[in-house]
Structure formats: structure tokens, C-alpha cells
């Protein structure tokens, strides 16, 4: 099991990693300064929020769900932290906990609705997307809340190590989620539930706590994403994170996660995040017009799943 799964996975990673390298090489050729430390550090500072959100999304996809609300929850968490610090003089640590916890609560409510009433996750989280966005406008009074440089320390590279606390936390999230998925009962159970709920129930797995658990995790990670976003920009914008859910899903799927549940890889999803970040950065360095950027982004997404298909062979059919 150990040996083989490692080899299998390594091969999966190799292919998608090659796509990433190809993209990097492409931008290296077409721009002057893409292959530079500065680009690396720019990309690194953009990664944390999308990374943690994608980790949560991957787990949700594996258990057979989907979470469209993450972008709004990121905004909600950022606004709660920002408003707490600025308008209510809450100490930063407490404010951060409050923000992340708001994500936990949103995730738990979503999971509870889905698991308790067997509702379609797509629609429940679509509703939650609106609700969380409305709440983030409410909590910030629809204003951009400037928090200042204290919180930005999270996003600044630590001298000596060269990467920021946000990034370290995001990497920790990747590693622990990978561990949970491959080496714990929780991981096996969510894979089983995502593969076949009936078979999982017959095997003695309780469906509800695991479904709720995964959505709660995704909400919490989105709350953390809000913190990282806030730390990156230094101000909380209730309009942030629109469309983030689609980037996260794209990253997860490019990284080999199935939208049908039961199959997915955290490391793959992280490489998917890197691909998206490199793409955005490279296109901005190229300075292409907005239409061209959109068209290229769309084509790269399609190309990435196409490449994945050719690697995997045509047998597996997802929706």
C-alpha cells in the first residue's frame, strides 16, 4: 500500500508538476523578469488565502459535496476581524479567533443543513454564498476597513526564513490535510462516503458527523483565508473573494480531484493553486489586455483537464 500509493501519487504529481514547469518556462521566455526572486516572493505572498480555501474545497469535493460559499466566507471573516479591531478595539488575537470562528460557524451550519436534510450541497452553499456576503456587508457597514500594518506582519517574509507566517500556516494546512487524508480514519471515511454513501453506511460509517465535519473544516479554512487576505492587503473589503470558489474548484480539479467525490489529492490541489497563481502573475507581467487574459485563462483551465484526461486514459467519466 505504502510503496505503491507513493509511486502512483508521485507519478500523478510529476505530470501536473510538468504542466507547472511548462507554464513557468513559457512565461520565462515571453517576459523579461519572470524568472526572478521577486516573482517568487510576489507569488508566495498571494498564495496563502487561495491555498487554504482550496485545501478545504478539496476535502469537500472528496466527500462528494461542493462549497460555493467560500469566497463570501473569506470576506465575512476578513470584515469581522477588521471591524473588531478597528471599531471595537478588540485585541488582535481575539479578533482573529472571532473571524476564523465565524467561518467555522458558517461551515457547520452549511454541513448541518446538508447532512441533516440531505439537501444538495450546490444549492445550500449557493444560498450561503449570498447570506455570508450580506453578513460581510453588514459587519463592515459596506465600508473598506483599514486595519493597518500590525496585521500585515503575518504576510511579510520573516527575515532569515524568507517566507511569511501566513505561508507557513498555509503549508502546514496542506501537509496536515494530506496526512489526514492519507493516514487517518477520518480520511479513509470521507473517501468512502464520497465513493458511495450507501456502501459507507453499510460498512458502519456514520455519514452525518463526517459530512458536517468536512464542511466545518472548509468553513474554518475559509475563515483562515479571510485572515490571510486581510494580512496581505492590510484592509478588509467586503467585496473581496468574489469568484474565489471557482478558482479553488479549478485548482482542485486540475490537481486530480474528482467532482463526483471519492478521489482527490491535496498535494495535487496545491500544485493546481501554484498553476493558477503563476498564470495570473505571468499574464500580468506580460501586460496583456483584459480580454486576452480572460481567454488565455479559460483555455489553460480547459487544457489542464484535457492533459489530465490523456494521462489518466479515457475510462473514467466525471460529470
Amino acid at each position, binding site marked *: 500500500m*505504502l510503496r505503491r500509493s507513493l509511486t502512483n501519487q508521485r507519478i500523478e504529481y510529476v505530470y501536473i508538476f510538468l504542466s507547472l514547469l511548462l507554464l513557468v518556462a513559457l512565461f520565462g521566455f515571453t517576459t523579461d523578469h519572470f524568472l526572478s526572486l521577486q516573482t517568487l516572493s510576489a507569488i508566495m505572498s498571494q498564495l496563502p488565502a487561495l491555498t487554504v480555501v482550496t485545501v478545504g474545497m478539496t476535502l469537500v469535493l472528496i466527500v462528494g459535496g461542493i462549497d460555493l460559499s467560500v469566497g463570501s466566507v473569506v470576506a465575512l471573516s476578513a470584515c469581522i476581524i477588521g471591524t473588531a479591531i478597528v471599531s471595537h478595539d478588540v485585541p488582535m488575537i481575539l479578533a482573529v479567533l472571532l473571524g476564523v470562528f465565524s467561518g467555522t460557524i458558517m461551515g457547520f451550519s452549511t454541513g448541518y443543513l446538508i447532512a441533516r436534510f440531505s439537501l444538495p450541497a450546490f444549492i445550500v452553499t449557493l444560498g450561503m454564498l449570498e447570506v455570508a456576503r450580506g453578513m460581510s456587508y453588514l459587519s463592515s457597514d459596506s465600508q473598506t476597513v483599514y486595519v493597518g500594518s500590525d496585521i500585515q506582519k503575518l504576510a511579510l517574509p520573516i527575515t532569515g526564513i524568507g517566507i511569511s507566517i501566513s505561508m507557513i500556516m498555509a503549508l502546514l494546512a496542506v501537509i496536515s490535510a494530506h496526512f489526514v487524508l492519507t493516514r487517518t480514519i477520518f480520511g479513509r471515511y470521507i473517501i468512502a462516503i464520497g465513493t458511495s454513501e450507501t456502501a459507507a453506511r453499510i460498512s458502519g460509517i456514520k455519514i452525518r458527523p463526517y459530512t458536517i465535519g468536512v464542511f466545518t473544516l472548509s468553513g474554518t479554512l475559509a475563515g483562515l483565508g479571510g485572515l490571510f487576505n486581510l494580512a496581505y492587503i492590510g484592509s478588509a473589503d467586503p467585496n473581496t473573494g468574489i469568484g474565489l470558489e471557482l478558482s479553488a474548484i479549478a485548482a482542485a480539479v486540475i490537481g486530480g480531484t474528482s467532482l463526483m467525490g471519492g478521489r482527490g489529492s491535496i498535494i495535487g490541489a496545491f500544485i493546481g493553486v501554484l498553476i493558477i497563481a503563476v498564470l495570473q502573475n505571468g499574464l500580468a507581467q506580460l501586460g496583456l489586455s483584459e480580454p486576452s487574459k480572460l481567454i488565455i485563462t479559460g483555455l489553460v483551465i480547459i487544457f489542464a483537464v484535457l492533459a489530465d484526461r490523456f494521462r489518466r486514459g479515457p475510462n473514467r467519466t466525471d460529470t
Partner: protein
Amino acid sequence: MSSALLEISDLSKKFAEPVLRDINFEVHSGTIHGLVGQNGAGKSTLTNIIAGFLSADSGRILLDGRPHTPKTVADANLRGVSLAVQEMSLIDNLSVAENIMLRTFPAEFGIIKERQLLGSARQLAEKVGLGSIDLQRQVSSLTLAQRQLVELAKAISCPFRLLILDEPTAALTEAQTKIIHDLLRGLVQSSRAIIYISHRLDDVLELCDKVSVLRDGILINTRKTCDIDASWLIKEMSESTGEIEEKHCFKGQKSKRLSVLDMVTPRTKNPIDLTIHGGEIVGLAGLAGSGRSELLKAIYGLEERLSGSVKVHLENEQWLSPMNASESVSACVGFIPEDRKTQGVFLGQDVCSNITISSLRRFCTWPKSLDLIKEREAVTALISKLSIVCSSFYQSIETLSGGNQQKALVGRWLMAGCNILLLDEPTRGMDVGAKAALHGELFAFRDRGNGLLIVSSELEELMLLCDRIVVLSDGECSGEFTRHAWSKELILDAAFRAYKVKNTETFNAEKIFD
């Protein structure tokens, strides 16, 4: 004998490893040609290739003397090849009538003629013995047996030259099987042929004109059925007699293991009581639709219990009362459902995780992480103990043959340390050898002092395995027999009882057959 309708030469097919090797095979017009072999011998693969669902790697197929290389099932249909598959192809969201007529909707400009659709479907349904079923029901509400009959009706809905039936009677009772056989005899005319796959060797010998034996992807032998008998077939299939000595001695201590008290399910009329002792195999017999599966699920905690309870007895006079599946598993009760594909195994996952899913706590080390090496060792040991045929334990479970999938499911519960096992149609669609092997495992399980409750539509199987048989009839318990005090007639009589008592005049075929 007339000329060959289907001629296959040097056909090979490989998945992960070769599944069919240099098959040479002929089917003549006007015959019913049997195809037998152990689980995983390649029967379904061969027929799926002929029907256009899979493509061969090499070799040649001639149909009517012309090359036959269908890319899709639709192509093969056009050439007159019709297939009824083992894992059924019914569309749950459509009605019975629509499913039967799916290939040949009566239509004008693509618009379906509803009346004609119903009429034609009715005719076909009657032919297969589904005469009085409501054709507008969704097929998802049918029992397995009914679904199998619908599948058959669908296969004969369009004009065909070659009809391929992959285990058409696996879920049917004897009476239903007889109707089907009569129908098939009538269908074979001078210009048509039927390929008939079955593990019921007596059926094959009785129905078919010729029979071919597949073993490990090689076509070993083709004979006329009048020249051979079942033991010859078994020998050819497996190189061994496949006989198992009956170990029907109930030698366990008479301690109660599981008792069911006043169980009422939506289908039952009267509360049902049942007790399983350690070292005992209890059978649950009954006609199709009599509520056996439902009772089993209710005991396990999957199906709604209207009232009643289950007690799992422990060593020290104490007992547990599991309310749902996960509590049942904690109480060391295991369940293998009748629909292996959608409810039993996790398709797409490897053999290893399919086996260990219910016993992961055993492999947990501090801090709550899985010891993959320990897991691997345990699974390897189990695979060799149950002789599950697979290339490795990380092979995807859907690429295993049905029999081996079933063994893996038994393995799941052995791994979980169950001492009570509930099995629903455990050997459906399994060959003689695999069946015997599974039976051996069940006996061994019993002999370790564990209790089993088995539902099967094959009375012979129950009579071979069980120490006691409880009979359900139309949702009520209509008899209980112990070994040596039963006979086939007595059991059948009990199985029919509720239907007869209820209304002797309107006692109709549907009640029995559906």
C-alpha cells in the same frame, strides 16, 4: 446443423493482464449455445465484445460471414446483436414500459406514440412472465428479480439475429426460470441463435444445444449437451470436482448470539421473532418480494423499524441493542447486501481499503494515524486465506470478478472481527467453484462459534448451508424447519402459504413471480 452465424477467431483482450486469449468460437443458427466458466473466466468480457460494449485487442469476428467490428452497442444492435447484461442496464428514472422499449420506441418524427409504446411493452412483459405488473411504475421500485425480467424483455424488444443473455436467471426462482426457458426455446428459429451464460449448470444442460467452457480466458472445450453431464462441466471449468463435503453438524454451544424481538417492517404483517445461536447458520427462505431483504436490513438497522428491537448477546449475560448500522458494526454484526455493486463495494477504491474500511481502528497507532504496513500485512494474509484472485491488493475493486468482490466483502467483516453475519443472496452470480469456496468460508466462520443469517433464493443452497430455515411468506413468518425435519416441498408450501390463505380464487401468477 446450419452454417455458423457467429465466427470468432484468435480473439484476445487484455485489461491489466490478459483476460481472453486466442478465443476461437462458433455459434450456429438455430441453436442455444451455453457458455460456462468460473468467475472471472472472461464470459462477460467475451460477450461484451461481441455486443460492442468493449473492443477486442486482436482477432476477428464474423457475423453472417461479414466482419463484425462494432464501435458501440448501437452499432451491434443494427447488425442484429442484442445483449442483456449481468449488471443490469435499466434506467431508474424511466418507467418499466419505457425501459422495455428503450431501443425501439414506436415514434413518428421522434415523437413517441404512447399508446403503441404501452401495447408493445405489455406484450413483451407478458412473454417474460411480468404479465400483470404496472408498466408505468418506475423501475427503481422493482425487486431485483423483476428488474432482471425487464432486462430480458428489453433484450428481446428489437428484432435480433443473435441474443446474448448474461446470467438472465441469477435472481429468479425456479418457476420464473422455467417460463424464461420456454420463451427462449420458442425464440430460437432457423436464422437466430442465443448465447446463454449461467452458473446453474443443470439449467445449461437442460436448455442449451451446445456448451463451451471458458477457463482463465481460454476456450477449453465445446460439446453438445447430450454428450455430457454437470460433473464433466465442473471438471472442465476448474480441473477439480468442486465438491465440498457437507459440514452441517451444529456443534456450537447453544448460546444465543442475536435475538430479534417483535420486529415489524413496512412489509411485514405480524411481528417477527428470530434467534441466532453461536455456531449456527439460519436461513431465511421465501418467494421473491416476500420481504426477506427488508427484514435483514431492519435487523441490521438500515431499514426503518416500525417497532421491535434487536439484542446482541455478549459473554456475560449482557446485551447490546444496536439501533443503526454503525451501532451494529460496533456490536460485531456484519451485513452483506444483495446489490453488491452499488451498496457493497466501493467502486473505484482499491481492494485494500475495501477490506479494511470497517476495521480501521485496528491499524491505528498513536497519534491516530494509520499504520499502513500493518494494514498491508493483514490484508495480504486475508487475501491468501480467502484466496481472493487479484493482481495486488491495490487493484481497483471494480476490476475484480463478482465472486472475488464478494469474497472481499466477507473479508471486510472477518477483518472487523464480526461474530454475527447477515448475508443477502451471498452467492448470486457466482460459479460453482467460487460458491463452494465461499460456502467453505461460511462454514469455517460458523465453526469458530459465530452465527449467520442467510437469505437466498436458491433453496438448495439454503438446504446445504443451514441448520435451521425460517420461511417468510408475503411478509409474515410462515414456518420454521430444522435440518432433517425439512423437505423442499414443506418449505415451498410454507413459502406459498400466505398467498393461498389470503385469496384462493385470485391467487395469480404475479404474486408468485414478482
